[in-house]
């Protein structure tokens, strides 16, 4: 250690690390987050591969069809896509951020010249990349093994795109906002997991939504997951199925409205309640 002391006085030496601009800073942060995500076996298995595992199970159990020659897979894939996006956006952030806060990672970033938004940019990049990857993986497995019919028109692909983007954005913002609620890293998963699970059950991920009790449908309609599933059903089910929806149509306008509203609510909560330090740090 002491032998290296001679290097300390070489202040003007050209440094191999170039000062980086805001965009590069965000991309570096995203790469760091992704690297951490992919190296954690738990997050890869339980977040990224979860939707694939679920479709394997569901498509294997429910081999019949919904009527009109439409397979169950066609219905369940919508719920699995939505669940996957919610898991990576909401659950993973609502659990991961409190752990990082507990361990002092946030405090450490705060002590550097890093602009604070870069931390969130890193999370958003991670969520986006994982969200796209798991969705593509899910579609590939469902199409390859269970004869999923992929969307046939540009219109439907477009709907798949905006519903997914709006949905994952709402989930991400809510996940970040939710992260301030958990008292500690350990309690975070105990709080976030049941909420996600209940939403999955009442939002038509595991069951056909219209077969759920009306009051349950009404509760689910408050939260984004139901609207994500509904928007995605318009992509993967024939137009004739719109009549079976609670409103008799896929209500794409309302889907956009509710998801956008959750984005606004999530963002407002993030901006007002986000905590960089633990409560005992005062």
């Amino acid at each position, binding site marked *: 250690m002491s032998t290296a002391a001679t290097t*300390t006085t070489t202040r003007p030496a050209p440094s191999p*690390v170039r000062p980086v601009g805001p965009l590069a800073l965000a991309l570096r942060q995203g790469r*760091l987050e992704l690297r951490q995500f992919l190296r954690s076996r738990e997050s890869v298995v339980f977040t990224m591969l979860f939707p694939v595992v679920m479709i394997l199970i569901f498509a294997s159990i429910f081999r019949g069809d919904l009527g009109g020659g439409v397979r169950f897979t066609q219905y369940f894939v919508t719920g699995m896509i939505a669940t996957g996006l919610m898991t990576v956006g909401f659950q993973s952030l609502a659990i991961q951020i409190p752990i990082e806060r507990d361990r002092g990672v946030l405090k450490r970033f705060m002590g*550097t*010249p890093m*602009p604070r938004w870069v931390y969130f940019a890193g999370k958003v990049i991670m969520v986006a990349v994982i969200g796209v990857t798991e969705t593509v993986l899910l579609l590939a497995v469902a199409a390859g093994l269970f004869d999923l019919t992929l969307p046939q028109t540009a219109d439907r692909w477009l709907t798949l795109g905006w519903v997914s983007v709006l949905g994952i954005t709402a989930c991400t913002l809510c996940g970040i906002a939710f992260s301030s609620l958990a008292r500690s890293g350990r309690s975070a998963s105990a709080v976030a997991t049941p909420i996600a699970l209940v939403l999955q059950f009442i939002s038509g991920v595991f069951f056909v939504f219209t077969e759920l009790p009306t009051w349950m449908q009404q509760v689910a309609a408050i939260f984004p997951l139901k609207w994500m599933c509904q928007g995605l059903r318009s992509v993967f089910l024939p137009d004739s199925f719109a009549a079976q929806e609670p409103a008799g149509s896929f209500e794409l306008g309302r889907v956009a409205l509710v998801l956008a509203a959750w984005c606004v609510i999530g963002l407002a909560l993030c901006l007002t309640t986000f905590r960089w330090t633990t409560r005992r740090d005062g």
Partner: protein
Amino acid sequence: MDDDQLAISVRELRKAYGGRPAVDGIDLSVFRGEVFALLGPNGAGKTTTVEILEGYRRRDAGEVSVLGVDPDRADARWRSRVGIVLQGTGEFDDLTVAEVVHHFAGFYPDPDDPDKVIERVGLADKARARTHTLSGGQKRRLDVALGIIGRPELLFLDEPTTGFDPEARREFWELIRDLAAAGTTIVLTTHYLDEAEALADRVGVIAQGRLVEVATPARLGNREEALATVSWRTPGGSVERVESATPTALVTELAARFGGEVPGLTVTRPTLEDVYLRMIGHR
């Protein structure tokens, strides 16, 4: 008040938690290039003071200037001039030492060479190891690497060697001396006397939120001028104890009185520990 000689200037600093004062009116000046140790027992207010100086906590009252800036208004430029090694470490379990240090280098306008910094903190052979495989001492070195990667003018170290074994502490001290020799101003908190004595140019003793004394380690508590205690056994068998400014004369006189050896003779001055314990109110 804060001319170029002062790295830190604090006047009448106060901070209370729930009405209970943690920092109760501290005045403090730290010169540029100095190693300053804040010494005190747990709960004395060391960390609160330092975290106010680092811009992590807001003060209730008082004036604070760190490198000429109020830490409450810390901006990126100020942050790039200040290095912080916190008490609790924020780890990146699944990343390697090199990845973490390189990443943090990217936050600073004029960072040091990450590989050289890793070598300097003694982690060269661990550069490719995931951080969760490091020992406690090695994690602390990584903390220091992240604290100095931006070439700070001022480095804060909050209880840097708590939990170290003696050898690791000595090595760590060497590293701090290297940094100080290169001109970095260092403020460290510690509850180890020997650490303050070994590293600091000046020591501030903090107890119950107040700065009890600031002095060089040798002069702390007027240790140099303190009375020596001479004790010996009287012919009756009891122990006589006398505090004396001129112990040599007293011993000479005793030798004459006993006609040679003085039974049970000891001459002691207060140790740094005695002085410290008295200052923080234990004696």
